[in-house]
């Protein structure tokens, strides 16, 4: 039981995917135009994360190591399709607001990242709670960002408008505002030396690529590629 609570604490506070690990930037920037969109996206991702972690962890001993990534992708894609159909049926307004970003949950780095780093090494129950914690952390992150953007950009809080239209700074609900809000957030983290992947104060994740898109610039991949090449070359020589 203790371990489950620890996983949730870890996901929401210690390794918060939005504020600390800086994963899943595409949906973070794209759907945070209003608080309800942010919560909707966060909860859909949470649902996918819980079940993908549960299934992958349950099947971790059956899936051969070499084909694990394609296998994980198929599992995640099936779950995303289920979630997409459920949202389309029961929450049509959210479906219209999120649009293409629902199927794109498949390529959200958080999901494959957790599958690689946690679910493929731990038991099903702990993995499901890890997914719950990470998903809630993501939801909290998206909701905080979207509350700020909605307040500044359209002067409302969860759709209740209370600032007159003359005082709206509408750029904050448009595309550039997303970049500005995120840049201010990371600048504040740098200023107060808060733990964040952007100032290198967080240990590298256990993903094969390091999971740090901001600083990678493809160098890690290139390095792995070279290693692979030399290994293949050596194997070819032996034959």
């Amino acid at each position, binding site marked *: 039981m203790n371990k489950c609570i620890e996983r949730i604490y870890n996901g929401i506070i210690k390794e918060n995917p939005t504020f600390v690990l800086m994963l899943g*930037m*595409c949906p973070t920037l794209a759907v945070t135009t209003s608080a309800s969109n942010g919560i909707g996206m966060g909860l859909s991702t949470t649902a996918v994360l819980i079940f993908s972690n549960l299934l992958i962890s349950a099947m971790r001993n059956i899936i051969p190591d070499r084909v694990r990534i394609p296998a994980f992708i198929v599992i995640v*894609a099936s779950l995303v399709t289920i979630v997409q159909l459920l949202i389309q049926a029961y929450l049509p307004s959210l479906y219209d607001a999120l649009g293409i970003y629902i199927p*794109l949950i498949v390529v959200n780095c958080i999901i494959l990242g957790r599958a690689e780093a946690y679910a493929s090494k731990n038991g099903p129950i702990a993995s499901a709670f890890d997914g719950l914690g990470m998903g809630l952390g993501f939801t909290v992150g998206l909701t905080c960002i979207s509350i700020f953007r909605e307040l500044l950009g359209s002067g409302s809080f969860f759709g209740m408008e209370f600032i007159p239209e003359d005082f709206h700074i509408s750029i904050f609900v*448009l595309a*550039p*505002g997303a970049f500005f809000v995120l*840049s201010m957030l990371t600048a504040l983290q740098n200023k107060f030396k808060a733990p964040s992947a952007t100032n290198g104060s967080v240990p590298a994740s256990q993903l094969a690529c390091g999971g740090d898109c901001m600083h990678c610039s*493809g160098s890690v991949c290139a390095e792995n*590629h070279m290693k692979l090449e030399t290994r293949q070359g050596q194997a070819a020589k032996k034959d």
Partner: protein
Amino acid sequence: MKELLLIVIGSALVNNVVLSQFLGLCPFLGVSKKVETAAGMGVAVIFVITLASIATNRIYAWVLVPLGLEYLQTIAFILVIAALVQFVEMFLKKNMVALYESLGVYLPLITTNCAVLGVALTNVQENYNFLESVMNGIGISVGFTIAIIMLAGIREKIENNDIPYSFKGSPIVLITAGLMAISFFGFSGLI
């Protein structure tokens, strides 16, 4: 002909894939330190997205629609894209060594680029026919290349500037991207 041109301009400049739709942000922020690498990434993305929009469009029309399995599009597309990238890598390695040496490094990175899946899904959503899908793919990937090369050019200049401590690193890059997004609003009058 006119409509095809409108699709290309619309997806390359007006609805730029990174600056207004936020797809493919990881490589956009990650691989934009030098103009040279950014250009390499851009060319690889053009190559893969164009091929992927051809492949996914045909799979959708020839396999998914006749079998009534349209709801499986996400699974089908992501598998097709992953297989395609692997296949392209093997093909280039065998037959076009020069091209492989310049693009090979970026190819595995692209499988997880959400722009590729994004293009395939928008093509279906907008009901584009074969030619329109290919044009949309070309437009989106050219837009990505323009944006990433411009950002890399600006970042090379920023290196020499005196930036306040808190804004060093990613914050200044994000502000640059935000300003670029504002300037891309200027294109919205084109169509």
